[in-house]
């Protein structure tokens, strides 16, 4: 019997208690495991070599892991190549290997639907005027297009009357932003961008302007940002300082980081108002002890495994990342959202450098 993804997608993103979620997610993930085992010869070989019998998997924790890095080295598809409508790649500077993720029509559509369910539960379902804290060059320059471009395109569905806040050379277009805000005064503004780009090209410019007496008011804005903290950690900027600085400089209070990766687009992990990253009904995280991959408990640091109920066209429903994380709890975050909530401590020491905005270098 096919369960399909729709059944899961009809559920609330943060409203399903633990037992019900684990049951529904396990059914779907087992279905995906069998599907990929039967349709992707590389996936089948890996399970055979590991000695895993897909018939003997009963819950989410038993779903075999694929290292996310494997998608950089091997092309893996569970549908015929003719069915691929989109190939996603992770960002990478020239010479770096990039992940290649193959999407058919259904998987691409499910990613989009999932993102809408998750994000609109934070932003509301109305489209808002959207300020993209990036340069339009990101979508034009083929070398820059990838996770960054895909992020912008993906989140654009939540906005209308879109405007890029930065020009082609990553300079802040102050006049443009001011007239955009005047035009939409009194409306809620949706801001989207990558953490490091926001800090360097937006926040720092706003700070300079403020000292010159020029103020930009974004107290009616909601910011969603992603792409990792590595570069900001090098500048010793914490998440807290990031939020406080933005609030001081332009009144922006509604700020949400998200955790996600190109290998599981759609299933992002949004940060709540208490600063916790949340797994939605459509995905999950498991923190594992590096020594033996056993499941770590609340408060224990370990390697992050991400599960997504979406991927049908490639075997990416259960991935071992190179990130170190820590489960904070399940179903009991003070924000009221159900599901696991957690914290990411960055890449495991010694991990090869990769990431979205993290590979961006100032020229």
């Amino acid at each position, binding site marked *: 019997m096919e369960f399909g993804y729709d059944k899961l997608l009809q559920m609330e993103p943060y409203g399903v208690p633990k037992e019900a979620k684990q049951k529904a997610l396990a059914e779907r993930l087992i279905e995906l495991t069998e599907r990929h085992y039967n349709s992707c010869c*590389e996936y089948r*070989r890996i399970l*055979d*070599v590991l000695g895993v019998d897909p018939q003997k998997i009963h819950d989410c924790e038993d779903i075999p*892991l694929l290292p996310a890095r494997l998608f950089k080295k091997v092309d893996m598809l569970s549908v015929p190549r003719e069915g691929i409508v989109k190939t996603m790649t992770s960002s990478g500077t020239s010479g770096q290997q990039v992940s290649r993720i193959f999407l058919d029509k259904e998987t691409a559509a499910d990613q989009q639907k999932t993102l809408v369910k998750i994000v609109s539960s934070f932003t509301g379902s109305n489209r808002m005027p959207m300020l993209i804290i990036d340069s339009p060059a990101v979508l034009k320059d083929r070398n820059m297009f990838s996770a960054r471009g895909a992020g912008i395109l993906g989140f654009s569905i939540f906005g209308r009357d879109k405007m890029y806040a930065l020009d082609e050379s990553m300079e802040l277009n102050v006049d443009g932003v001011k007239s955009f805000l005047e035009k939409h005064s009194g409306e809620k503004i949706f801001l989207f961008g990558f953490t490091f780009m926001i800090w360097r090209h937006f926040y720092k410019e706003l700070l300079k302007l403020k000292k010159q007496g020029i103020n930009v008011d974004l107290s009616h804005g909601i910011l969603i940002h992603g792409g990792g903290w590595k570069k900001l950690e090098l500048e010793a900027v914490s998440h807290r300082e990031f939020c406080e600085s933005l609030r001081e400089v332009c009144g922006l209070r509604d700020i949400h980081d998200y955790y996600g990766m190109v290998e599981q687009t759609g299933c992002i992990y949004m940060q709540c108002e208490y600063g916790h990253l949340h797994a939605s009904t459509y995905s999950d995280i498991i923190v594992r002890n*590096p020594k*033996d991959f056993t499941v770590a408990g609340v408060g224990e640091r370990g390697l992050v495994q991400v599960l997504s109920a979406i991927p049908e066209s490639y075997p990416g429903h259960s991935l071992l990342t190179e990130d170190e994380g820590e489960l904070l709890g399940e179903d009991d975050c003070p924000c009221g959202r159900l599901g696991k909530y957690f914290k990411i401590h960055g890449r495991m020491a010694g991990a090869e450098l990769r990431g979205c905005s993290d590979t961006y270098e100032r020229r």
Partner: protein
Amino acid sequence: MNGVEYLAGGPEVSNTPLPAYSEEALIFLSDLSAKLLHDPRTRAYPDVTSFGFWCRKANLQKLKEECADRESRLGRGLAFHVAPSNVPVNFAFSFAFSLLAGNGNIVRVPSKNFPQVQLICKSIKQILPDHSEIERRAAFVRYPVDQAITTGFCAKADARLIWGGDDTVQAVRSCPVKPKCIDLVFADRYSICVIDGESVLQADERSLKKLAENFYNDTYLMDQNACSSPQLVLWLNGGSEARERFWGAVAEYAGNLYELQGMTAVDKYTQLCEDAVERPEVEKVLRQNGNLLYRAELSGLPENAGDDLRGRGGYFYEADLSELSDICPVVNEKYQTLTYFGLGPERLRKMVIDDHLRGIDRIVPVGRAMDIGVIWDGYDIIGTLSRIVQAG
């Protein structure tokens, strides 16, 4: 030269040779040995200890006596060493061998900041002023990859000792040298272990534990990251009972000592998946003690094993041999060390020579893979780095 840091010694290095096994060299090295072995910081580094132990007076005296024609040997002049980046103390051995041969030495130490390198260089720096003949013949330098600097050092060299991967070797060898300069190249190599299963079954608990400890020292101790560290374990008479007994003992020993890094665990697991996809000869991969020990079981020996079948941090390939000579067709010049348990070294050496193998330079018992010596990679290092003064 700009960008060159001198950890010991200075830019002027004499090329006036000393006799092989000169008193000056022996006294200097034994002083260094005493200094290192008495330094409490040395205890944290077994590799520094074994270097200190190797260059103590008695051992050097023994090596000197083994060198029959030492009275007619003199150093070639000035040697330039490019040390390997993965093994912290090899620069010190490379230096000591060349000094014993009678040469002045410019030693490029690994650019990675190993504490062992600091420790040894500081000790050398401290004792050099008491050894004026050695002081004018020694410089320990560190610099980032820089072809111009390397070219400068190469121009003066009468011998080069080049340790490193194929790219490093190529880059250094492309620098021009004097017509009579000789090169000793210690390139990337591959090592294997041959075990007789019957002998494992017959071993008592104590010898089994010793075997596990020895195997651990050859492999895990260096994260399997040294050329002489076995990557491939080959079994003679290797039934599953013998194998489980051996690996069980190894996993138990390693479990108490080996610190598996999170990233190494990811690396090993990723390699497992890649092996599954790319290597049809990998039948299954057994994982023991969590991620501590990975054993990739091969259905046969691939010809390119020396290039492809390499693990790190406790990832081994293993295969059955129906007879010893099964390995002959795959052995090429990449193969360096063969460690053995339960079979005799003479039998193995006879195989290498009688079957005209292009590789395998060293045949040592399990536990001795890391013991570097004056014969290495098939070279008589001291003989090669000195010249014979013929008379009569």
